[in-house]
């Protein structure tokens, strides 16, 4: 509770207070502008023609708005010898990200449920090792994972990439769900056991319906990680299965002669749109979900 009886020691400092408040707003506004600058340059450049970029100012608005660069980036830009834009790669990313997000979230929920509610011998050690998985630098696992994928016959395929993302997402998804479920009283599980429900019944009927906030957090986290991944994408794919991040790199780096900045910018924005979209739509749930569990409902 805030103390309503509190009054400022002196009544004369009201103007000082307002001045301080405005200084704060101006500072924050400047920071926001600073952070938004690159995005502004990207967006304006993507709507300019190459001629205008060559002659004009970097931060000026386009004299003539053209969508040509966007069209080229989507379906005509060359990534090496192939000139189909980012479109096929964008769909590769969708095909990788959606199953990988769903699978890693579901398995993470099950793991968290077991670690938090069905304590077994060595549960703490198991959880500690899972956490360890969160902090492994991925460069370390590239070679063994390449060998594994080869043995499994999944090398260079989309299922192979899904597999890799699910495995390396589990550390975080398990952590999220475990921390959420650990705050749920164990009496709930006991009551359900007395009622006759089994392991999966309790998970499905009681725990999953409770989990919406943490599912949102996990989905946003995993989607961002997997969609933005470059290292696994470039290491474990081949022509035809590359995700959009790899394609973006190829578009920017494989052009010869004049650099088509407008196309590069448009392609970069296209590649970033899905994660931006997820944040704008579900961002408030993200913050809410991260703090959920720490407060009793």
């Amino acid at each position: 509770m805030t103390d309503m009886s509190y009054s400022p020691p002196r009544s004369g400092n009201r103007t000082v207070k307002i001045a301080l408040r405005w200084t704060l707003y101006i500072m924050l506004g400047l920071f926001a502008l600073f952070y938004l600058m690159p995005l502004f340059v990207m967006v304006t450049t993507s709507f300019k023609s190459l001629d205008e970029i060559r002659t004009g100012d970097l931060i000026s608005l386009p004299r003539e708005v053209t969508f040509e660069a966007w069209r080229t980036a989507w379906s005509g830009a060359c990534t090496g010898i192939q000139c189909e834009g980012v479109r096929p790669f964008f769909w590769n990313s969708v095909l990788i990200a959606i199953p990988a997000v769903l699978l890693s979230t579901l398995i993470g929920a099950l793991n968290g449920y077991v670690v938090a509610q069905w304590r077994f011998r060595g549960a703490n050690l198991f959880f500690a090792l899972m956490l360890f998985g969160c902090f492994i630098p991925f460069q370390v696992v590239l070679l063994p994972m390449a060998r594994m994928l080869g043995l499994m016959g999944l090398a260079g395929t989309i299922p192979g990439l899904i597999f890799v993302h699910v495995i390396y997402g589990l550390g975080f998804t398990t952590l999220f769900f475990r921390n959420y479920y650990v705050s749920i009283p164990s009496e709930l599980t006991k009551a359900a056991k007395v009622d006759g429900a089994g392991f999966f019944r309790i998970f499905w009927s009681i725990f999953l319906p409770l989990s919406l906030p943490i599912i949102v957090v996990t989905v946003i986290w995993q989607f961002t990680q997997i969609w933005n991944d470059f290292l696994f994408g470039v290491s474990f794919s081949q022509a035809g299965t590359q995700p959009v991040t790899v394609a973006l790199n190829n578009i920017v780096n494989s052009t010869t002669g004049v650099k088509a900045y407008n196309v590069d910018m448009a392609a970069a924005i296209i590649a970033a749109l899905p994660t931006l979209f997820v944040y704008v739509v579900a961002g408030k749930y993200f913050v809410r979900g991260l703090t959920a569990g720490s407060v009793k409902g």
Partner: protein
Amino acid sequence: MASILEINNLFKSYGSVEILKDINVAIEQGDFLVLVGPSGCGKSTLLNCIAGLEPITKGTLSIGGQDMTHVSPKDRDIAMVFQSYALYPTMTVAKNITFGMKVRGVDQATQDEKLKHVATQLQIEPLLNRKPGQLSGGQRQRVAMGRALVRDPKLFLFDEPLSNLDAKLRVEMRTEIKALHQRLGASMVYVTHDQIEAMTLATKIVVMKGGVIQQMGTPSEIYNHPANLFVADFMGSPAMNLIPAKTKANGKGVQIEIERSSGAPITLIDTKNKDLPENVILGVRPEDIADATLRGGEGRQEADCLIDIVEPAGADTFAVMQLGGKHVTARLHAETAAVAGKNLNLAFDLGKVSYFAPETGERLN
């Protein structure tokens, strides 16, 4: 006759820590067994063992004459009410109550009928479509009871079901549980740390401490003949006065001497008991020390005592004095003449006293 619940030589340990030691309990159909003790005495663990939620390290357990030592909770024909109520937060009250039946595959018509019956019985019909989060503590408590009642089990288990309620509601629900027990004639096991709950509800009380049963008996046995100092001190409010005293053989019985800082020792003659050791601890309930002018009679021994504190509590007035180096409380009439700092003639009812050995704490008479 087969017992509804029979526990033989039960041990429970977590690793090398023994939580329960050699527990033997048996109750008959219709009994209300209360497990009572301070926190950490193992009473909740014992209840979880009965429910099958905790495996038993050693010993056997049978419910309704069938061995249940290794049977899973759902097949024990029990229902349980938890301290936190443990209602399923995302389900409505109706779904909470019928969840068990749904899991067991009971048909919809029977489910509806039983739900209706239980809802009427507990007066929770208007709440059936609400979620647990929209209910008050007392209402949640009722729903948790409903979930247990609908099962119609051989044995009801209650794990401190009233400790989350405020004082007034707790007394109301206590009466209601007692009425429910009388109406259903069901067998119940009830865990609490509140000795008043234990006294009012039980037909049989088990007092526990440190994983060991201290005494088992009817409320009156536990109250009037506590088996040791722990039980004597734990049961009853205000607690039994435990006064160090010396005894001497006397022609008619035993002469008891209680030291006091002010004046000569108090001397009382107990004609009922003999053969007591020299040093004893005398246990007297506060209500067995009365105003000598208001109540007299046989078995009573009078003594003039200096009253230190007078605490009026409405129906009674408590007078506190210093005897044998201990605070001693007497439960007096509301209109007593006791005044702090003045002497009062008090009558000790020696027909009801307990004697304990100071070394072992065991009862002597």
